[in-house]
């Protein structure tokens, strides 16, 4: 990325991106080669080093969206509005990855791609909650005017995290009557290199999350600006057109 070319990069994001990639390389080494296989899950445990971090970050993204919505309702500043959408969108990507990896891991471990495990169920509902929130925001964006829009999206954003929590616990309670939650199926005596790899995974995916969030935030910010610029440009064009139009009309008819 050449420094002169207009983009959403800055020195900070280049550092963040570099760290993310270096961390990812290190994580791949630990996750796929240097960490041992689990006694029960064998090598399929290696998928967990993607799955668990993305799950944590998916819920973290919801918390950020709710926080941004609350701040927007207080301050009404554009930045908070953009942040809410950026966090929800990156969160949606992470939630999707979490579901896919969980499903792939479930096949060798549980013998099925889909189990009505409390976490799968509540994460799927979280995915749909995020989709709904983003759909509403898109409509808010289309209805123009940054000053008028928003409460709608902000109210749903504000409710996002509480909803996620209520859904999570009710689903947990619902399923726990039939079976134990996932965590007890994992080897509880996780230790040593495996624990380190998991922690490294959480750190590296957090870096990637932050990096994507910053870029998505800036893109969202530019979207807002482009709308304004587009509107202003259209007005300028219209005026110029009107001016030349009348001039031309004056020239021919009189």
């Amino acid at each position, binding site marked *: 990325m050449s420094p002169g070319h207009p983009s959403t990069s800055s020195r900070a994001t280049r550092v963040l991106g570099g760290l993310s990639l270096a961390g990812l390389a290190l994580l791949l080494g630990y996750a796929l080669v240097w960490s041992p296989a689990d006694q029960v899950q064998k090598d399929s445990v290696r998928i967990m080093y993607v799955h668990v971090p993305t799950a944590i970050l998916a819920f973290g993204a919801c918390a950020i969206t709710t926080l941004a919505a609350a701040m927007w309702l207080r301050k009404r500043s554009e930045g908070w509005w953009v942040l809410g959408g950026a966090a929800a969108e990156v969160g949606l990507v992470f939630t999707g990855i979490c579901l896919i990896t969980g499903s792939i891991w479930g096949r060798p471990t549980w013998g099925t791609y889909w189990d009505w495990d409390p976490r799968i169920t509540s994460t799927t*509902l979280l995915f*749909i909650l995020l989709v709904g*929130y983003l*759909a*509403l925001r898109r*409509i808010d964006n289309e209805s123009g005017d940054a000053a008028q829009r928003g409460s709608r999206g902000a*109210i749903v954003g504000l409710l996002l995290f509480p909803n996620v929590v209520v*859904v999570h616990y009710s*689903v947990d309670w619902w399923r726990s009557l039939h079976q134990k939650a996932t965590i007890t199926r994992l080897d509880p005596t996780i230790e040593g290199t495996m624990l380190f790899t998991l922690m490294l995974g959480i750190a590296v995916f957090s870096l990637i999350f932050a990096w994507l969030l910053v870029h998505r935030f800036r893109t969202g910010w530019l979207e807002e600006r482009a709308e304004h610029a587009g509107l202003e440009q259209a007005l300028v064009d219209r005026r110029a057109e009107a001016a030349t139009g009348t001039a031309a009309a004056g020239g021919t008819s009189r």
Partner: protein
Amino acid sequence: MFRDAALIAGKDLRIELRSQVTTQQVAPFSILVLILFAVALDPDRGFLARASAGLFWVAVLFSALLAIQRAFTIESADGGRDALRSSGLDPAGIFLGKAAAIALQLVVLEAVLAVGVVVMYGTEVTGVPLLLATAGAATAGLAASGTLYGVLAAGLRVRETLLPIMLLPVLAPVLIAATKSFEAALGGVAADGWPWCGLLVVFALLYLTFGTLAFGTLLEES
């Protein structure tokens, strides 16, 4: 606030009585859903009766969606929402009033569906106090959250498609809790159902409080 609520609820219910949309369209729809379940699942009576708690609440949820859409389309004609905004009524009162009107219609629908389930699925009614308490708490929660999300979607071109995708995941806890509670009342031990009923009460209170506080902001912009 409560006087405004009574005013709004009265208005909505009067419109409802005249137009008869709930009784002539939504209630038949809910019975239709029960028939569709019987067709889709094996209409062997034993199975339907065992699943009747869940099927009943899914039917309630679908019918509630229609009732909520309806509650907000009656205002979209002739600038009704502008009139409501400039009426000087307390927004909290408007929220409670609309929620109360929806709740009353839901009670009617639930009564129709209860008769339908008993007659068509052969469900035996036991644990009546728990059934009534659950229905009451679930209805309050459905009405409160439905009113809140209904006004969010109202006035949008895509409201018919947007409301279900936003509201149904939010209502998942209501479906779970109401189903579990009904199962306990109908088949199992009633004592197992009361905690679920408590969850429904918490949900209803949460949305009633939030809606009362947030409705003013929302009404201004819908």
